[in-house]
């Protein structure tokens, strides 16, 4: 029956619904610049009709208890994956940029010039084999060469240590996030089981998941109850399952002196998963530490050893100023320990085998000629210069490659977040139009109440 009170009630539902809609609009506007915010929308529904005396009467409007998040699940999955790539290149680029700096070749004071000056000093000695100045200069240049090797090597080692420290910190961050995701799982399931919407918690969890993906390569899926399961793509080690999270830990490896990443099971057994990490910043640090920088360091070591052996072999055949045969010139086992083994300038063997001193210069010339000799360095047979230039070229290309990958990834990230904004972002114009619409509807509903009031007055006055 369409009583006057029925109309009043219909107007009331309108007032409540529009007010709720304005409330949601207000939340949207307030979060217009919140990262990862998903705009919300109330959905209106016609109130159940009442059938009375052969006539159908409406009972106003209802709003869904579940406020809808305007959201594309697949797009978010792509953003999560892109974050992992971006994270990987972030940490690669950071380490490579440091590496690029320590080589210092652009200023002309790197290993390249130290080597050239070293060979030139031998030539200079051949010009005046008995000269004290030439001998002292040669020793100085040799020390500079050894120190340049030492510095480069310790610089690379320092970058590896920095990466190692970053690995430890990243693992701590990962643990904090997985614990938070497990916590959010619990909240979301708790709220949604009662049919309410846990939009804020879902937004938070999506953001945490993306952050996590930036740190470590993960695979994840959402269960029917709304909780999300996160695991390492390789080996299937779980990080979050239901309301539980598993922590990763770092353990110092006594042989490499760097940290291994371990996964700890419920009963406390630790499994090393360093090589199973597939992407994200953590993988970037691990690759930089164990592959990229280690590769440069190995090359440098091979080069230092090759120069040491080549110079030593020739130096031993020579004759020093006291007519003794030449001693070991360079000592040390790799780039970090290379040192000049001679401290007395008279012990430099400038004269060739059987040549008279102090005028003999054949050995100095022989050693100077090593500059263009093909040495066996690692698995290659190349001149020391060519080998080093190739190394520098590799570093430069690696940095450039990482830079390109990084900017490609940030391009993709921008594109994806643009797509996301297109769907889930808050458009001020949209919200204002909604606001005008809801406000007008609210005003109209209020007008309805006034009209019903007037109708009642009229009725009362009739009596």
């Amino acid at each position: 029956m369409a009583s006057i009170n029925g109309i009043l009630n219909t107007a009331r539902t309108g007032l409540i619904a529009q007010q709720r809609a304005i409330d949601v609009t207000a939340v949207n506007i307030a979060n217009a610049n919140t990262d990862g915010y998903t705009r919300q929308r109330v959905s209106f529904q016609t109130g159940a009709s009442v059938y009375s005396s052969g006539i159908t009467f409406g009972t106003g409007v209802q709003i869904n208890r579940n406020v809808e998040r305007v959201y594309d699940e697949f797009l978010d999955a792509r953003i999560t994956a892109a974050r992992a790539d971006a994270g990987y290149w972030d940490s690669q680029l950071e380490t490579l940029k440091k590496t690029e700096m320590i080589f210092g070749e652009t200023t002309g004071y790197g290993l390249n010039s130290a080597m050239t000056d070293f060979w030139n000093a031998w030539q200079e000695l051949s010009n005046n084999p008995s000269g004290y100045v030439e001998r002292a200069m040669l020793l100085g240049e040799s020390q500079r060469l050894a120190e340049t090797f030492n510095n480069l090597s310790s610089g690379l080692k320092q970058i590896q240590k920095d990466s190692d420290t970053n690995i430890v910190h990243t693992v701590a961050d990962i643990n904090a996030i997985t614990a938070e995701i497990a916590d959010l799982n619990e909240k979301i399931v708790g709220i949604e089981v009662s049919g309410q919407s846990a939009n804020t918690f879902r937004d938070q969890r999506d953001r945490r998941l993306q952050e996590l993906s930036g740190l470590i390569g993960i695979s994840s899926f959402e269960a029917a109850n709304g909780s999300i399961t996160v695991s390492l793509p390789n080996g299937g080690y779980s990080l979050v399952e239901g309301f539980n999270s598993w922590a990763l830990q770092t353990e110092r490896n006594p042989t490499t002196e760097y940290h291994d990443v371990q996964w700890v099971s419920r009963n406390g057994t630790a499994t090393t998963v360093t090589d199973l990490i597939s992407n994200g910043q953590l993988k970037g640090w691990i690759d930089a530490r164990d592959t990229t920088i280690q590769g440069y360091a190995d090359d440098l070591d091979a080069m230092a050893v090759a120069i040491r052996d080549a110079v030593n072999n020739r130096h031993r055949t020579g004759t020093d100023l006291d007519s003794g045969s030449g001693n070991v010139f360079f000592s040390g086992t790799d780039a970090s320990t290379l040192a000049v083994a001679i401290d007395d300038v008279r012990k430099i063997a400038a004269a060739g085998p059987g040549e008279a001193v102090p005028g003999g210069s054949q050995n100095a010339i022989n050693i100077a000629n090593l500059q263009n000799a093909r040495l066996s360095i690692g698995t290659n047979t190349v001149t020391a210069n060519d080998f080093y230039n190739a190394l520098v070229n590799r570093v430069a290309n690696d940095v450039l490659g990482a830079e390109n990958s990084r900017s490609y990834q940030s391009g993709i990230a921008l594109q994806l977040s643009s797509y996301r904004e297109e769907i889930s972002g808050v458009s001020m114009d949209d919200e204002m139009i909604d606001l005008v619409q809801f406000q007008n509807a609210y005003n109209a509903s209020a007008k309805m109440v006034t009209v019903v009031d007037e109708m009642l007055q009229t009725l009362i006055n009739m009596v």
Partner: protein
Amino acid sequence: MRVTTKMMADTIKAHLARQNANILKSEIQLATTKKINKLSDDPKGITQLLGYRTALSTLGQYQQNITNAKSRVEYTSTTLEQIASLVNDAKNIASRGTPDEYAIMADQVVDIRDQLMDLVNSQYSGSYLFSGNKTDTPAFGPVAANGDYPYQGDAASYQVMVGSGSKVSIIADGDEIFRDVDTPIDPDDPNDPGTTIFQMLDDLEEALRAGDEAAIRETLEGIGTIEKQTRLASARLSVSYSRLDDTQARWKTFSNVIEEMRADVEDADLAQTALELQLQQNNYNILLQVAANVIPPSLVDFLR
């Protein structure tokens, strides 16, 4: 397509950042006047650059070796010329003297011998010129019991590294120049080393003092040989000198070419970079203008 204000803001921010990075790069290039300021600026270029730098430095060293050797050769040449002229004087004395001048001439011969000894044992930057590799020992020692002046150096020559694996030898064997192997001290000794110029002069002095004209004539041939050997050594030096000179000229040309290539790879074209910077700044300004126009208005501004 739905476009939100955040999208516009993000896009403009990203482009501003990119444009700023470009401007920074140009500024660094202008400040350092170098195109390559980090390895990754030009991986191929940095490799070429290192090659050029090594080549320039090594070629510089070769040229320095050569300059050093040339001054040694010049010094040696001058010394040999003086020696040749003194030997020539001695020859003239032996061939033209008259008996009444013999006593004075004998004194002159002694002077010549002493001067020759000084010249032959002369040093260049602390090293004896004609002692082979035994550069710390005078070439010829004082007279021995058999009248010989013993050679104290060795047969080595002075080596100059003028290129990779390429050397120029400069004569430094005094024995080869100042001893005549065909004039034996003792004709019966098969291992006789021959006579040095100093012993010849001693013989000449003795013959002059004795007035023995035949003996005087006898010394002529040996002295003549020494003069010839000295002139020959001079000639060999000038051959060495021109080889050094040619090599140096070649390295100089080569250095210039490489220097040009280095500059091509490393040095920034300032005019072009400045122009690029101007363009980038213009783009930046345009972008700012766009940002100012696009960002603020929304429906909010039009609702009253």
